[in-house]
């Protein structure tokens, strides 16, 4: 580890935190239905969309109706994307002349983008036409993120409102998230990306004659426009196979900083918006500190493990000071690889700038563990906030048990019904991850796609289902995921991780909205103080740690000791 490395980590995080307040306040205005400085331009567009769609913005929905709208919209997106991928051979903007995407891969990819996972079983530059990248993937990068924000806003309103069933209007929330938040930011970031070197064209590949006289075919395309929303929407599905490790997605240190800041900013700012909207900004900062503390610790462990390097290779005469360099690019450096790895998995982004599969065992354990904690640090846009609120509900419940009082959060009593729904949501993750991993680990069709045998093989499978169920999308790329078994089961894991979580969360929102808001009394456990921050970190660690520790012990931890013992597989 180096001081300059930590200085860079610190500066990137500070830049993001400085954005949290203005962006958070702006989004609070957007979702309270207030006018913003973009309204003169966007308001007519917005109204036009509602007219065409038959949406009346003053019609608020209850939790059941809101849920149906989320599901209907996601299903429409799924079908549209599946159709585009299957039909790309006859659609325009296909200069490379790619044929249709295979059915199982098209299913996996469609689910992957609609659920904001963006798991890549496809190799972008050799499978997808420019039309599929733009009208297919880029669109769902926006819409899946906007859907997440909408759900988070419905949950937020449940805390603000009292004795009502109305949670807002999904169509309005989703449209406003797209028009007022995601699109303007995407335009700014996309143009900044082009200035930093990302390509943005509609050409096919171009051919270069190298200095040694060989022909090199170089893939380009509309990269910057997709990269911008890929990060802002915490999607993470890259234009290229190797994602943000590709020099065209991430050409230098500054594009790398922008990548990290772009993916962190909205999720962190939404937590601030929550504080603002419930009338307690300290609450926003308390939840933000939970995130930052855990991200810094996670980054530190990866940074340390990767700098310590791989003793199996040091024997060959390598300069030990450079650390583990397999699967990394020269231009980023160990500290920015470490921060990227922690942030992309603490968020449900899933883009990578180094190959996670080639990280040291402990360096690879951290991203896996951060995902298993429930994708709340700060999690995907929207999904991170509602995930964090579920943990907050659990934390006040535990605190309530300790002191023997009825737990309350933000003036809402947390009772048996909310606890049951919260646990239902939380238990989806271990059920899906451990269940599918166990089946895959004992079946030929699950084991044969493994690249590195031994404990790393189990890690490859465990990482895949963790990433899918957490809607993250990063991978231990050694596993050949493009098989019928993995395309199908990872697709199911992604859907359960998204919708089997959203449904109980919206039910909690419905239940909380119906309750009266009770004023804080001397017996109320304050949830905006360091004590609560510590408690919620404990809850998150215990849920993640206890449920997944046995599996982690067999995978990365076993591999760590094998590596120290000089064993390879």
């Amino acid at each position, binding site marked *: 580890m180096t001081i*300059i490395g930590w200085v*860079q980590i610190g*500066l990137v995080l500070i830049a993001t935190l400085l954005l949290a307040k203005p962006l958070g306040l702006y989004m609070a205005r957007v979702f309270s239905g207030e006018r913003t400085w973009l309204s003169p331009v966007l308001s007519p567009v917005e109204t036009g*969309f509602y007219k*065409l*769609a*038959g949406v009346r913005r003053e019609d608020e929905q209850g939790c059941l109706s809101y849920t149906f709208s989320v599901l*209907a*919209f996601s299903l429409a997106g799924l079908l*549209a994307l599946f159709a585009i991928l299957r039909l790309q051979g006859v659609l325009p903007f296909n200069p490379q002349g790619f044929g249709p995407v295979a059915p199982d891969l098209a299913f996996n990819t469609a689910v992957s983008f609609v659920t904001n996972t963006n798991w890549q079983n496809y*190799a972008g*530059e050799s499978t997808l036409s420019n039309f599929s990248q*733009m*009208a297919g993937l880029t669109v769902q990068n926006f*819409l899946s993120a906007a859907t997440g924000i909408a759900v988070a806003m419905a949950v937020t309103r449940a805390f603000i409102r009292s004795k009502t069933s109305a949670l807002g209007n999904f169509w309005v929330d989703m449209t406003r998230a*797209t028009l007022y938040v995601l*699109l303007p930011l995407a335009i700014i970031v996309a*143009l900044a990306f*082009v200035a930093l*070197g*990302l390509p*943005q*064209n509609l050409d096919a590949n*171009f051919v270069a*004659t*190298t*200095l*040694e006289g060989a022909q*090199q*075919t170089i*893939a380009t395309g509309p990269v*910057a*426009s997709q990269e911008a929303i890929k990060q802002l929407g915490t999607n993470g599905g890259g234009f290229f*196979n*190797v994602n943000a490790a*590709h*020099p065209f997605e991430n050409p230098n*240190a500054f594009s790398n900083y922008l990548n990290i800041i772009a993916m962190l900013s909205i999720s962190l700012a939404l937590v601030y918006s929550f504080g603002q909207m419930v009338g307690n900004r300290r609450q926003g900062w308390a939840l933000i500190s939970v995130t930052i503390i855990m991200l810094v610790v996670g980054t530190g462990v990866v940074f340390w493990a990767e700098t310590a390097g791989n003793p199996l290779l040091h024997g*060959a*005469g*390598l*300069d030990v000071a450079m650390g583990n360099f*397999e*699967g*990394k*690019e*020269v231009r980023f450096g160990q500290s920015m690889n470490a921060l990227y790895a922690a942030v992309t998995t603490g968020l449900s982004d899933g883009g*990578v*700038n180094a*190959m996670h*599969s080639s*990280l040291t065992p402990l360096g690879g354990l951290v991203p896996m563990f951060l995902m298993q904690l429930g994708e709340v640090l700060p999690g995907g846009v929207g999904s991170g906030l509602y995930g964090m609120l579920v943990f907050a509900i659990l934390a006040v419940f535990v605190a309530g048990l300790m002191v023997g009082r009825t737990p309350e959060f933000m003036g809402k009593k947390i009772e048996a019904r909310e606890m049951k729904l919260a646990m239902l949501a939380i238990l989806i993750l271990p059920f899906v991850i451990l269940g599918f991993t166990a089946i895959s680990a004992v079946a030929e069709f699950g084991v044969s796609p493994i*690249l*590195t045998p*031994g404990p790393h093989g189990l*890690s490859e499978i465990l990482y895949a289902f963790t990433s899918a169920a957490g809607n993250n999308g990063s991978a*231990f790329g*050694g596993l050949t995921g493009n098989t019928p078994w993995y395309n199908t089961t990872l697709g199911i894991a992604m859907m359960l991780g998204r919708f089997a979580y959203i449904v109980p969360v919206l039910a909690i929102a419905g239940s909380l909205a119906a309750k009266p808001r009770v004023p804080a009394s001397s017996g109320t456990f304050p949830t905006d103080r360091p004590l609560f921050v510590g408690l919620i970190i404990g809850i998150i660690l215990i849920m993640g740690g206890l449920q997944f520790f046995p599996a982690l012990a067999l995978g990365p931890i076993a*591999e760590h000791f094998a590596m120290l013992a000089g064993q*390879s597989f």
Partner: protein
Amino acid sequence: MLNHIRPALVLTVTLTLLLGVAYPLAITGVSQAALPYQANGSRIERDGTVIGSTLIGQNFTGPTYFWPRPSATGPDPYNAAASSGSNYGPTDKRLVDRVAEASQQLGGQNIPADAVTTSASGLDPDITPANAQMQVARVAQARGIEAGRLEELIASMTQLPVLGIFGEPRVNVLALNLALDELAPEAR
């Protein structure tokens, strides 16, 4: 149910037109007008021929050029139409053997790690200054040029962190080899 289906369909179509067609095409138009060099892939030309992209590594195997990092792309190294890392886990025997063999060929002592490990993309355009230094003796001999002049060339081509903080010290291999051709043209 119908009151959910109409907005779902209409908004999917209209937002696809806005986000999937208008947005990327507008960004493309502005980029092509204002930043055509970057927007078209940072191409480098020599004598009217495109010889590569400054951002994309290319393969060098002859002794007269500085070599890039090993690449894991298939079927050939530095295939810029199919980016890929090796994805070998840290305890993979193939990784351990490959690194041991590669560093043996380079002398087996104090080898810069980037010289014997594959990059994440398989297209890394850069090497570390230490890696470039290590290759000076070979290139100097093959080109019949003093080692000292190559050292100076590497120093002048090394990109240092901005303000000493932002970025990593690195040498772009294609740019270095282009400058090398200028400095000491090979007998062709």
